[in-house]
């Protein structure tokens, strides 16, 4: 047998992915193989692609998502399902605004200098550019998604769905306006959700301030890491059982610099071990103080404006000063009045804006909120009753924990471009909702929601709440959460570390199939996917072996071999079974 083969082998060149990939993708598109059919009698298998943000080109994390989903879709398509893989992209409002603003900064101009209309033009230009880049990338990945159903979260159909949802939730009193302490980014000039704030430990200072009692009997010493907020203090609080201060509760403090009278109150939330055991209370700029202020019916004063400057409530001396300049001046003024007891090094945890990294300020603001509890309950029930399966199972516990402690969901954004909600409506708005379309009937709910675990709450949980509320059915039968892509050492890939592997560069070098196979193989091994280029090279060699083996077999076949005879004869079924 060997002799027959070797007689005919001439060694061809190895597999050249580049020549082949474009050709076949084009062919598949032309043949319409990716298109779903809403009238098909076959069982549907539906995946809604997590729409990537248009803030930049796709990275390996996106590639992994595309690979896993494409494997599932191709597999199910070959199994005879009516498959829909719906692609699209997310406008990512504030994030996109920020990248465009960064670009403007390089041109020495700004959003405000350009004005709304010109700025929006720039944003749409960005969207066009990156939308095209992302599309090209997905095609190079081999993604067999139905491009005829592609959506953008800001397109007409989806914006209409957003308006419909807003009005309907408002009518049902699930949306309300309220004064609330929110995370505010003074740079983005926007409210941020809890998830958009990164809490980072930094070395800072703890200042001990002397607050005089009004009756002149002495001082109370309070500690703070943000002295500028003292201008908004409305009380000093102590623990009710703290013997040192029991006689002082009910007395009045004359707040330094502004000479405002504030009470000494007691509250169980005060930690007697922290500092002196007496704490200043600023309900307008601190989350704990906000709650304490509510319990004790304290007034709430905001001393910062939307850009992070001191406002009129801070007093004429400080009004208009940037928060950090005000801090410096206040410390100087307190020192001059001998009211600064001491200064010590201290590690502070500061909230940073996820988008622009500015330090976030808790601020009083009138915002729109969605009442989360009534929406969260059914979203927990369907997981408990296994109507929606979470894979790996371990994440279900995390899901319940988060859902049980869910806070009302601040949905307003002070942005020029974009809206909220849109990504939460993705599983049904993309199918034509609120209209009763054939697509909606056939393809809702999706079969599996496949995404990275990092957006379980950000996105998946919210789709659950909205899907159940508006469609009366959970938006997917199962949730599959995949791992994060890291470098060979297990570190997060980032431009600053210089350890980023670009998916298109890799495809250019080794072919899309090699990258696909590598990442899928790694994705089955736990939480982190540690990717080294050598692995891709290894799988490229493996593909070369398949290539050579098949061509080897072909040469052995001789030219007149024809499978037609076989496929047309009765024994086809036997062979297929095998």
């Amino acid at each position, binding site marked *: *047998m*060997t*002799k*027959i083969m070797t*007689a*005919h082998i001439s060694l061809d060149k190895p*597999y050249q*992915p580049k020549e*082949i*990939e474009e050709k*076949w*993708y084009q*062919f*598949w598109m032309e*043949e319409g*193989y990716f298109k779903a059919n809403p009238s098909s009698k076959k069982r549907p298998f539906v995946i809604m692609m997590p729409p990537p943000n248009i803030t930049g080109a796709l990275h390996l994390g996106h590639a992994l998502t595309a690979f896993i989903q*494409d*494997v*599932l879709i*191709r*597999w199910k*398509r*070959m*199994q*005879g399902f009516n498959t829909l893989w719906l692609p699209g992209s997310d406008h990512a409002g504030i994030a996109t605004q920020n990248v465009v603003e960064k670009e403007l900064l390089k041109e020495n101009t700004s959003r405000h200098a350009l004005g709304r209309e010109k700025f929006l033009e720039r944003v749409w230009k960005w969207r066009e550019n990156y939308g095209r880049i992302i599309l090209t990338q997905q095609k190079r990945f*081999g993604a*067999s998604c139905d491009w005829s159903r592609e959506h953008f979260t800001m397109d007409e159909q989806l914006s209409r769905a957003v308006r419909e949802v807003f009005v309907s939730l408002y009518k049902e009193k699930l949306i309300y306006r309220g004064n609330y302490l929110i995370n505010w980014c003074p740079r983005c000039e926007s409210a941020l959700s809890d998830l958009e704030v990164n809490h980072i430990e930094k070395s800072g200072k703890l200042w001990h301030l002397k607050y005089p009692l009004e009756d002149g009997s002495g001082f109370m010493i309070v500690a703070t890491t943000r002295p500028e907020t003292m201008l908004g203090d409305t009380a000093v609080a102590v623990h009710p059982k703290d013997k040192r201060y029991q006689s002082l509760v009910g007395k009045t403090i004359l707040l330094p610099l502004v000479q405002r009278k504030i009470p000494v109150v007691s509250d169980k939330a005060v930690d007697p071990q922290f500092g002196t055991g007496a704490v200043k209370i600023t309900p307008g700029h601190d989350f704990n103080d906000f709650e304490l202020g509510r319990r004790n019916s304290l007034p709430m004063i905001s001393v910062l404006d939307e850009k992070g400057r001191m406002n009129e409530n801070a007093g004429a001396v400080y009004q208009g000063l940037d928060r950090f300049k005000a801090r410096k001046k206040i410390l100087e003024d307190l020192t001059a009045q001998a009211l600064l007891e001491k200064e010590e090094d201290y590690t502070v945890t500061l909230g940073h804006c996820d988008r622009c990294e500015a330090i976030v300020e808790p601020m009083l603001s009138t915002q729109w909120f969605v009442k989360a509890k009534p929406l969260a309950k059914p979203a927990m029930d369907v997981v408990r009753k296994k109507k929606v399966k979470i894979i790996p199972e371990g994440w279900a516990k995390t899901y319940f924990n988060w859902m049980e402690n869910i806070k009302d969901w601040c949905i307003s954004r002070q942005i020029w471009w974009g809206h909220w909600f849109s990504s939460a409506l993705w599983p049904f708005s993309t199918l034509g909702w609120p209209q009763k379309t054939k697509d909606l009937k056939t393809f809702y709910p999706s079969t599996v929601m496949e995404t990275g675990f990092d957006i379980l709450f950000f996105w998946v949980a919210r789709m659950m709440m909205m899907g159940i509320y508006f469609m009366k059915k959970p938006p997917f039968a199962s949730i599959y959460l995949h791992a994060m892509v890291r470098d060979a050492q297990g570190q997060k890939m980032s431009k600053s570390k210089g350890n980023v592997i670009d998916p298109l560069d890799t495809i250019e070098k080794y*072919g*899309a*199939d090699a990258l*696909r*196979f590598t990442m*899928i193989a790694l994705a089955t091994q736990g939480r982190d996917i540690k990717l080294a280029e050598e692995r891709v090279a290894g799988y490229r060699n493996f*593909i070369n072996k*398949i*290539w050579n083996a*098949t*061509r080897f*077999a*072909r040469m052995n*076949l*001789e030219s*007149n*071999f*024809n*499978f*037609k*005879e*076989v*496929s047309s*004869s*009765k*024994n086809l079924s*036997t*062979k*297929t*079974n*095998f």
Partner: protein
Amino acid sequence: MMFILKELLKLVHPFLPFVTEELWHQLPLSNEKSIMITSFPKFHSKWVNSKAKKEVQMMIDLVSQIRNIRGENNVSPSKFISVTIVLKEKKNGSLLNSYSESIKSLAKLSQMRWQTESLDPKNVIRAALKFGELFIPMTELFDVEEEKKRLQKELAKVEEDMTHLDSRLSTPAFVERAPKDVVQKEKDRFQELKSKKEKLAESLKKMSSL
């Protein structure tokens, strides 16, 4: 073998869509325009059909036996040969019929006959199969006159080698002075050549009687 390759390509298509599509088109596999729209191999337990598996295994055995014999006899890959199979059970005849086209293509056969009556012909190469016995007439495998010439040539060469070796081993100087293992090696080689000579003479005798 080809359908295994075909099923394998389908199996890995979701992971390696591009290379499998290209190979699909390079192989004369089926009428389907793209591997993307073929049906995925079914490996669910209820689909693993042991009967089908057995049948396919039988055909693979047959094809590889024929190929082995072709290989051992240096049969040109472009030459079509005819074979006869003696079956233990008649029911396997229809099975052979249903697979006959693919077997003929894969094993390069001009004709494939089967029968249940036993056969004991001379001048054939035989091989045992699980379900019977395979017979290939020697005349199908090679040109008798050519083969005779080839055998004679080879025989002459072996005899020449033996003469050389024999004279060397009869030289006392070599046997005494050369290292012992070298001497042993040459003796072994002589034995090898001797048995080869016997085999060649046997083949040549058979060939002459054809």
